[in-house]
């Protein structure tokens, strides 16, 4: 079974589950590999044991580690990235969000629009201020270019993934 991990920036990791061994009614062994440069690498056996309603995992069937039980099997956190997990298939239409498109990364409210349509901007210039989680976040130009279109107005409340502004590459 192939698993696809895709983060907000469309980075992709592929992990294959290619062996499952049921040792007993509460011990099961899996073998995973990661697909890197079209080769399966980092092959690893993982044992899972259920004890007192809790899952424990082990690499060697000796030393066991407690883990937080996942209730939403389609989300996976790795340090600073939250991945969407797709099991068995790779979704189409996930792309989008071109280079110069500014999408909201979290729900918020537009506090101030700093630039005007048609204005020249440099990568890193402040374009607008989005208030989210009681904080003002400066949204910066991702590339050098011209402000092609502004889709939002000051005071507007936005959902996640909303297109705010488009910058055309110089």
């Amino acid at each position, binding site marked *: 079974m192939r*698993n696809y*991990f895709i983060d907000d920036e469309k980075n992709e*990791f592929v*992990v294959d*589950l290619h062996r*499952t061994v*049921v040792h007993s009614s*509460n011990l*099961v062994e*899996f073998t*995973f590999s*990661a697909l890197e440069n079209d080769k399966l690498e*980092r092959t*690893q056996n*993982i*044992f*899972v044991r*259920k004890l007192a309603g*809790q*899952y424990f*995992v082990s*690499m060697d069937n000796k030393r066991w*580690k*407690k*883990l*937080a*039980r*996942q*209730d*939403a*099997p389609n*989300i*996976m*956190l*790795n*340090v*600073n*990235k*939250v991945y969407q997990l797709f099991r068995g298939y790779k979704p189409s239409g996930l792309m989008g969000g071109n280079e110069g498109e500014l999408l909201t990364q*979290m*729900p*918020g409210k537009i506090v101030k629009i700093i630039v005007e349509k048609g204005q020249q901007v440099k990568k890193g210039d402040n374009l607008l201020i989005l208030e*989210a*989680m*009681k*904080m003002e*976040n400066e949204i910066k130009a991702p590339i050098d270019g011209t402000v092609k279109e502004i889709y939002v107005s000051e005071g507007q409340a936005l959902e996640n993934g909303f297109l705010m502004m488009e910058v055309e590459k110089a």
Partner: protein
Amino acid sequence: MTDKRILILNRGEIASRIAKACRELNYTSVGVWTESEPHARHLEFCDEWVFLEGKTNQETYLNIEQIVGVAKENNIDGVHPGYGFLSENTDFAKALEENGITFIGPHSEAVRLMGDKAVSKTLAEKHNIPVVPGSTGAVKSVADAKKVAEEIGYPVLLKAVAGGGGRGLRPCADEIELENNFEAVGREAMSSFGNGDLLVEKFIVNPRHIEVQILADKKGNTFHFFERECSVQRRHQKIIEEAPSPFIGEDEALRKELCDTAVRLAKAVGYDSAGTVEFIMGEDKNFYFLEMNTRIQVEHPITEEITGIDLIVCMIQSAFGIDLGIPSQEWITKTGHAIECRICAEDPITMLPAPGTVTGFETNFPQGTRFDNCLYKGLEVTPDFDPMVGKLVTKGITRSVSLRKMKAALDGLFIEGLKTNVPLHKVILENEKFVGGNYSTKFIGEEKPQDDVKTDFDYEKIYSMLATIEARRMGF
């Protein structure tokens, strides 16, 4: 003892914490729930719940009229505001008073005096409490500025009267820099704030943010519970606090002077609750009064851990005029060292808030860990509330022991689905400067621990998580 009814006007971990104090006192805790958080975890700890109508915080937690109405309807004896929201709002304290309900906090005059930075600074000066030296009011010219600077000594800070948020500030090392910067900062202030007036203040090099916990009753007994070091900050918000301060260290004379100064200020305003006096301390160990927070603070647990006092219980007792049972200042002692890491729903590298949903939550802590939190599986961290989801506190007989425990505690805190600053805390706890205890408020800016957060795809963890998901799918 008559059974009192306490309305807990807050949410998250502090609401649970206050409910626990009510339980100890055998008071009825009445929690608040709102439409935006119908499953809030803190309600589990309360005896009763009331509903506040409205969608925004303005309509619920900040709506004085509605809150007073609900309190009267439910025969509430006292309201504990926690921190934030209405905890330092004099109108609210007065509204409660007029309706015969106790505000669990200081008298409103103390809140008013300390709420205004200029007023509190003047008051402190009047009582010979050191404040950051500088010009009284705006300086008119470069010559004026130079005169003040010579009196207080370089380096100095040029500061826009109307400034804020770190803008309109410039340190000047000597007379030449002051001359060169004066007009530029004035112009900048004029264009940014519409007011070009400037102040000259002593520039504190590598400042430490150190604060003293105060507790007072209505009879004029005022005690301190030693200091907390809160210099690890990002965006002027604390993320790690420890008690006692490693910068003060074994210097008991300095500690006594600092704590006694805080008590003196509290007495000057007739303070009668739990509060905190904040100081900034320079490299030379001179300290200056910054402000007083007239509420319970987020980081109160570390003081509780080293002194063994329950500050929330005492705060409630004090509000109702009940004896605190503390015979004297000398009776209060501290043991060991405690540290707190604020666990926030934020990106560990950019340190920006990252809302999301908790999909898994489990703990496996070492002995001596305290975790005040509002986490549960399914918790949705929304942009409406503060991103802090918990406070991890460890205590040890020495600083190195509590740091060791904290590292183990962070390793045993499993939060899934939601980005948190746990990886950042782990890096800070390995940082040489931090471990050495010699750090200032510039720590995050200079050491940049966020750059050392490892972001490699953790295959072992990902495989393990996948394995449990598969096992579950197979019906294990």
